[in-house]
């Protein structure tokens, strides 16, 4: 079986099927559906068991963050932003904090830089661990999630120890971080990394050398490299298509320039390749975390003193701060009018394009049973689309 033959590039134009003809069936996948990530829905038009057309419907999780943030003080938004993306809140915290610091002209202490990097890498690992369970599950493979979610839980235990929160850490606060690492924390980190790595080895064997997974994932959802710019695809989805873009390298924020890592690039750009690339990035995370533990300064302040948060005004200006999250470019656009509240905060989540424009296009021609697997292979997360 030649794999290349499986790569079907769906048509650019939307189909306009005649639903009255009886040839097609309109079906909804979601919001309450086991084959959907998060609370969103796909409106599928199917012919037999293959999808003719797909429309994404979002908004089930719309809370109006961007409006609410305009009502709150700069510091009051800090607990709010992490809720935008539940599996990886820290990217929100970082982008928001960094944007504020840039606008207010605040330099954060070196220790905070390292601890921020640590928490971003830890949550990257945790988020990938949750994703990989979902990816396997979407192809009917229930074992992986039993392992990987537990591994994720171990990472969350670390977060709990560090920040006092399991899901919402609220650790990266404008000005630095909220506390130094507790005694013995780095030791725990290294222990957990060993456990996770061992488990990843198992997952590698069981999932990536599983004939069922291979057959279902290979060739599914092929993204040509020239779509990357056209669709604004970022992160592993772009890297799996052979486009070497990693904001950690490109922007060189936080402590990344001081860490030793290479951008992992794929080639085949199908669901299997993307999954494999993410697995490699998980190994990379573990490696980075070990480097951070090794290099993080032991002493020094962890937060810059800021003005009274009740009246903190940020000089008028605007900025866009992006970071490489698990799924790609995560960014906060923050505009200040010089008052004590933001004028506008806009959140750029990678799922915005991956789950809508890209998904709609890729779903065409796919077997219904593979829609869930395809969606998970794009690693989307609805709340960052609708905020």
């Amino acid at each position, binding site marked *: *079986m030649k794999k290349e033959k499986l790569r079907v590039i769906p048509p650019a134009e939307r189909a306009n099927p005649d639903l009255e003809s009886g040839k097609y069936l309109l079906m909804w996948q979601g919001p309450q559906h086991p084959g959907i990530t998060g609370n969103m829905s796909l409106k599928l038009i199917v012919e037999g068991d293959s999808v003719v057309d797909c429309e994404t419907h979002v908004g089930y999780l719309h809370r109006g963050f961007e409006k609410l943030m305009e009502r*709150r*003080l700069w*510091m*009051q*938004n*800090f*607990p*709010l932003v992490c*809720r935008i993306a539940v599996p990886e809140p820290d990217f929100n915290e970082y982008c928001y904090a960094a944007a504020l610091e840039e606008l207010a002209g605040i330099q954060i202490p070196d220790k905070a830089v390292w601890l921020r990097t640590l928490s971003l890498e830890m949550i990257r690992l945790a988020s990938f661990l949750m994703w990989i369970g979902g990816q396997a599950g979407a192809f009917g493979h229930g074992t992986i999630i039993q*392992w990987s979610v*537990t591994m994720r839980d171990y990472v969350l*235990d670390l977060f*709990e*120890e*560090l*920040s*006092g*929160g399991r899901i*919402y850490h*609220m650790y990266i606060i404008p000005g630095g971080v*909220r*506390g*130094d690492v*507790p005694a013995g924390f780095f030791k725990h980190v290294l222990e957990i990394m060993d456990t996770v790595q061992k488990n990843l080895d*198992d997952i590698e*064997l*069981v999932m990536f*050398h*599983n*004939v069922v997974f*291979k*057959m279902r994932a290979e060739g599914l959802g092929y993204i040509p490299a020239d779509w990357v710019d056209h669709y604004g695809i970022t992160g592993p989805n772009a890297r799996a298509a052979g486009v070497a873009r990693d904001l950690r390298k490109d922007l060189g924020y936080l402590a990344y320039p001081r860490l030793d890592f290479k951008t992992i690039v794929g080639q085949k750009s199908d669901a299997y390749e993307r999954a494999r690339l993410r697995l490699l990035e998980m190994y990379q995370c573990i490696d980075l975390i070990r480097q951070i533990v090794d290099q993080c300064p032991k002493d020094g*302040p*962890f*937060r810059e*003193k*800021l*003005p*009274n*948060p*009740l*009246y903190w005004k940020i000089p008028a200006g605007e900025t866009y701060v992006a970071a490489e999250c698990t799924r790609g470019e995560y960014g906060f656009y923050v505009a200040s009018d010089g008052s004590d509240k933001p004028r506008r905060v806009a959140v750029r989540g990678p799922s915005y394009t991956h789950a809508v424009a890209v998904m709609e296009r890729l779903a065409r021609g796919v077997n219904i049973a593979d829609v869930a697997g395809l969606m998970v292979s794009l690693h989307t997360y609805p709340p960052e689309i609708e905020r």
Partner: protein
Amino acid sequence: MDIKDFIAPFAVWKRAFEKPFTVKKPIDERPGAPRYRGFHINDAERCVGCGTCEAICMNKAIDLVPVEGREAKEGDSGLRPRVDYGRCCWCALCVDICPSGSLNMSNEYLWIDSDPDVFRYTPGVDKKPWDGAELGYRRAEGYRLLDEQRVPMAELGHREAVKSFLELVQGYSRAQAEKEADRCVSCGLCIASCPAHMDIPGYIKAVREGDLDTGLRLLYETNPFPEACGRICTHLCEGACSIGTGGDPVAIRWLKRYIADQVELSAYAKALPRAEPSVGKKVAVVGAGPGGLSAAYYLALLGYEVKVYEKDGEAGGMLRYGIPEYRLPYPALDKDIGYIESLGVTIKRGVAIGKDLSLSDLRRDYHAVYLSTGLPVAYGLEVPGDKHPRVLDGVAVLAAATRGEELGLGKRVAVIGGGNVAMDAARTALRHGAAVDILYRRREEDMPADADEIREAKAEGARLIEKSIPVEVKDAAGALAGKAALFVWNEAEMVQKEEGKRPVPEAIPGALREELYDSIIAAIGQGPDLSYVTEEDGVPMKRFKPLVDARGMASPGASPKGGAIFAGGDLVNDRKDAISAIADGHRAALSIDRHLSGKGA
């Protein structure tokens, strides 16, 4: 696809005998981490009910509620935060910002109920299983959202200070003032403690926002002596400041001074309210101290024609004659008084009531009279020998210094007393090159003087001799007779004689000490001079002072022929500080207006 893809998955069978991941009894076995952000706990004793937690809470999860058995008192609103767990997001910003550090979080996270209305409680007041939890979120060492340190005030060094009467405190620059104002959380706990109930959060906000005209207007709403109070106020407000519960209180006094210093006198009129049109009534004020002039200011604003009678050559009362120049320079005081005069208030300087004019004259010529004559009479030591020519009285020494007279205190000076007059006298003597001992009957912590004053007097070189009961003043022997005196005191120990009362100094038998001084300045207390009030004025008196009602009126049964008499300030109240006198003056002005206009009688 190769054979490995079929076989590899079986490899993990090797894990079958490893320890499973499963937690046996999750609910029992997994307490929250030591830093876990669980339910709130609050030390209700340390909490002062400032509501800063409520202000920072973006979820509006916190209400401040009255608590049974907890009354409002100075520096404590008596309210306590109540948390709605239908709102809380466990971000702990409330913990991070809490000025007193009383609010924390336990590591408890289990709370399940069928009734959605139960998820509210007042931590530290309503009993909860997690009260007193050892573990849970506390703000990290070295991490606070509020700045616990006051912006340092530039002051003359102590060595420099004693060489001259230059003002010690330099005042804040704009950047410093705005930074200091930024420390305030606008809780308003201070307002109740200020005798004048000034809108302190309001004018601090004005400083923060650089709107000094508004700041000045807010100051003058309750206090027409911002320059003076900005320097010498007893700042009870700072004692009540919620920020002071976990650090330095906000420098409220210096911020007040900053506002007044920054606005030129010529620009005052633009910022401040104009006087009402004349109501055609006249009021006399006796005594041009802070209280009398305050009454005059507010009366003038209300449209009264006000004349102030002052026995001394200059207006200002104790602010001028009692407080040395290095604490309150005369130009600053002149600015306050100058603005009051600019509203049309006439100050008759050098006119003593009781001598040049009688009180009944005033009652005849004015619709109302306000007595604000303060406490000009210094009390004596009342020990044998206290009439020795080298025993001086503190008030007189300070007044002479103000007048620029030669003091001739000599090289060795004793100051008897622990109040602000004693400190001022001691520091004045230091500036005249004397070596100064301050003798006080009790301990340093019992001294009624401001802590700052005591600290500075000591820093400038005064020696503090605590627990010393005056026994006798003896004339010096030989050539020094009449020119120096021996001060004899008895060393004392503090004895707690009665439960709940302050300890009493008791002389240690035989522990007599004596020391030769060129001058002995008695500053043990002062009393009023009421020789100008006669029985005909109808002023009821008790314990050597006029009795006033809640309105400040001292002549409830005043005959219809004469104007009513009101009294206030040190003469009447027990606080005996400038800000209380100012508050009395303001209150009396309003009462006089109500009395004369017939409003709200």
